[in-house]
């Protein structure tokens, strides 16, 4: 009996392994370009037979959920043959969920996904080439921010595989009341690193009794200022045109030194006390008036409106050393290649609808978001607000953090090293040199194992 069982067990195991292997391939069977499973769009918009598609996004609460529920209803009404099964998963869960689903071949038909990492999906044929659709329907790609369109193209041939939904941009927020209090002109925010430092020193308030901080002028580790953003304002390029890392430049070291100097004005003890204290506010320390100047994304405006609507603040470009620069991240929409022409066609209709100027305007109103559609974001109605104008003006300088497939995680490593320099376990120069070495190793190791 025992022997007989094993007779079955071994082929059984083989079957299991093979199914495993197949499901691995099944999801990705399509190599090469575009919709090879679906051979390009139909010559006209789908009509007649009912198609059911699924759509995953991040909007699972609040006004954005309400808006998306409503938009999907409107879309279904306008397209009676398309039924949309949509679900919001939240900003932190969608990425993991989508990555696993795409690997397993169980992804939705239309997906919202982070702006990074598109090339991998294009190369693997996981997402559908939108170029034929765009050409068929004559979609004007000038209506989107050009920078967003650029990173959504396939490297090499320039076909668009995704369209931008929403993005963000980092700006300097400053507290006008605090400016007046220390005798600074509230209409003249700092524009250079030097000004930022001298303003910050004036605005910082120490408590004589506790030796702790009552207010911080400016601290780079606060808010949403990441090291690379600062480095860019000093003319740093982290990679050359061939994709080789060029981190160890004098400009980058200078930026790291400045970051460490600014951060260490407060000392670890007082700063961590400040952080715990302001952390208990439940919202950003700038909103609570505990920080006078802070680099954050445009989304901080909503937080201010929700928690401290009376806060008197201004918005300015990030102070620079050499050239204007700032950092954006965001989300795009993409059609998952589920090898079903009808579904891909229907998903395109929804994608086109959601990224259209009219809908994107409503998106902006509901979520205060910087939408990917330039015409919507810079609508004259919205541009009446000077702060909003400052925000959208930054889109001409903004950059995306390069994440070459071979060097994924390099930015996190550089951040870690700069923080080690802040903690004093290495010098800023060592931090940058180490980052260069680590990025080189990352690429070398990736190349050897791919």
């Amino acid at each position: 009996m025992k022997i007989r069982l094993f007779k079955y067990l071994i082929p059984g195991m083989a079957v299991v392994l093979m199914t495993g292997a197949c499901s691995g391939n099944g999801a990705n069977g399509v190599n090469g370009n575009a919709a090879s499973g679906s051979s390009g769009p139909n010559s006209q918009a789908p009509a007649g037979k009912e198609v059911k598609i699924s759509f995953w996004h991040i909007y699972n609460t609040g006004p954005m959920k309400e808006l998306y529920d409503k938009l999907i209803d409107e879309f279904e009404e306008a397209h009676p043959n398309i039924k949309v099964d949509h679900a919001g998963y939240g900003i932190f869960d969608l990425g993991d969920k989508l990555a696993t689903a795409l690997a397993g071949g169980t992804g939705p038909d239309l997906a919202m996904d982070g702006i990074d990492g598109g090339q991998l999906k294009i190369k693997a044929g996981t997402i559908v080439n939108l170029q034929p659709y765009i050409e068929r329907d004559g979609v004007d790609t000038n209506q989107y921010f050009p920078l967003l369109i650029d990173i959504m193209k396939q490297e090499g041939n320039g076909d668009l595989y995704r369209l931008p939904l929403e993005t963000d941009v980092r700006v300097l927020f400053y507290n006008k009341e605090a400016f007046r209090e220390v005798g600074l002109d509230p209409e003249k925010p700092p524009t250079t690193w030097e000004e930022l430092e001298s303003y910050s020193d004036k605005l910082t308030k120490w408590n004589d009794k506790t030796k702790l901080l009552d207010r911080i002028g400016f601290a780079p580790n606060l808010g949403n200022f990441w090291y690379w953003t600062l480095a860019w304002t000093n003319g740093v390029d982290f990679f050359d045109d061939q994709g080789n890392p060029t981190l160890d430049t004098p400009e980058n070291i200078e930026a790291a030194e400045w970051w460490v100097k600014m951060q260490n004005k407060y000392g670890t003890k007082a700063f961590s006390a400040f952080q715990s204290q302001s952390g208990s506010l439940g919202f950003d320390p700038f909103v609570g008036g505990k920080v006078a100047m802070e680099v954050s994304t445009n989304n901080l405006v909503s937080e201010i409106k929700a928690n401290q609507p009376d806060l008197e603040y201004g918005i300015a470009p990030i102070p620079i050393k050499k050239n204007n620069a700032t950092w954006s991240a965001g989300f795009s929409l993409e059609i998952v290649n589920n090898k079903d022409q009808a579904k891909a066609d229907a998903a395109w209709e929804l994608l086109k609808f959601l990224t259209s100027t009219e809908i994107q305007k409503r998106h902006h109103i509901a979520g205060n978001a910087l939408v990917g559609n330039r015409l919507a974001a810079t609508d004259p109605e919205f541009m009446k607000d000077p702060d909003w104008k400052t925000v959208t003006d930054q889109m001409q300088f903004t950059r995306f953090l390069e994440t070459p497939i071979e060097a994924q995680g390099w930015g996190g490593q550089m951040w870690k090293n700069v923080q080690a320099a802040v903690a004093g376990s290495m010098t800023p120069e060592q931090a940058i040199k180490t980052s260069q070495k680590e990025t080189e190793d990352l690429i070398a190791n990736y190349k050897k194992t791919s």
Partner: protein
Amino acid sequence: MEQAEIKVSPAKRSERRNRLARREALNGYAFFSPWLFGFLVFTAGPVLYSLYLSFTSYDTLSSPKWIGIMNYKVLLTQDATFWKSLYNTLYYVVFSVPLGLIIGVLLAMLMNQKVPGIRFFRTVFYLPSVVSGVAVALLWMWLLDPSFGLINTTLAKFGIQGPGWLTDVDWSKPSLILMSLWGVGGSMIIYLAGLQGIPRDLYEASRVDGAGAVRQFWRITLPLLTPTIFYNLIMGLLGGFQVFLQSFVMTNGGPVDSTLFYALYLYNKAFKSSQMGYASAMAWILLVLTLICTLIVLRTSKKWVYYEGAENK
């Protein structure tokens, strides 16, 4: 009819018994086949598939590409972060496992006293192991807060300036080890069962012979508890090597990679960098390491684990 029954030849009878036995066996297999199916499909299959993946380059979207032992070679010879994460994990195992054993045994002995309200205390000490890991992690983030956490404010009352705990490169690992001891209640319960399995008469007899409490502990309690300690040691090792949740939730590997444990680095490679083949190779290296440690413990166990009733020295 009855006669016919009696006249059945011995050969036929044994054949019938065989048939019965076979049927019984078949039933047995039928009953456990759901488990077997689940095991093959959801455990053995993926495990073996990951062995295959460890020899490939696999970005989860394109098909895996065979690259031989390259993943292993790069991991072992060129990846500094790999060694750093291994060091962090070994550090954690070396301190948290023995400390967990010692404190678990001591606590179990305390909880084995016959004092009023002991059931209450047993519940209190066991309670942390019932709480979900993420909740525990969040709770400890509050406790360990450098300025306003309960631990440092208490220390400050005694004039001690507490460290930065999770924010301090030197203290982040000890913080997590300290935190792991809070969950010692799970093993305490097992020790308690072990303690209660020790026959009373051994203590009575030794007392008659003049043994004190200390001697009783070393000569009776500890030897008779060794099978339980052995079990907890193995489980502790397995758990220790896989430590993940604390650093994932509380520190994300920081500050400066000081709590980047092996499993967290593996997770990052698999799900953040989409290097599934590389991560699979890491998983198999971890398996081999854990296997070696467990084998060493198993080998030495003959020398220190005492099974009552077994032929033992």
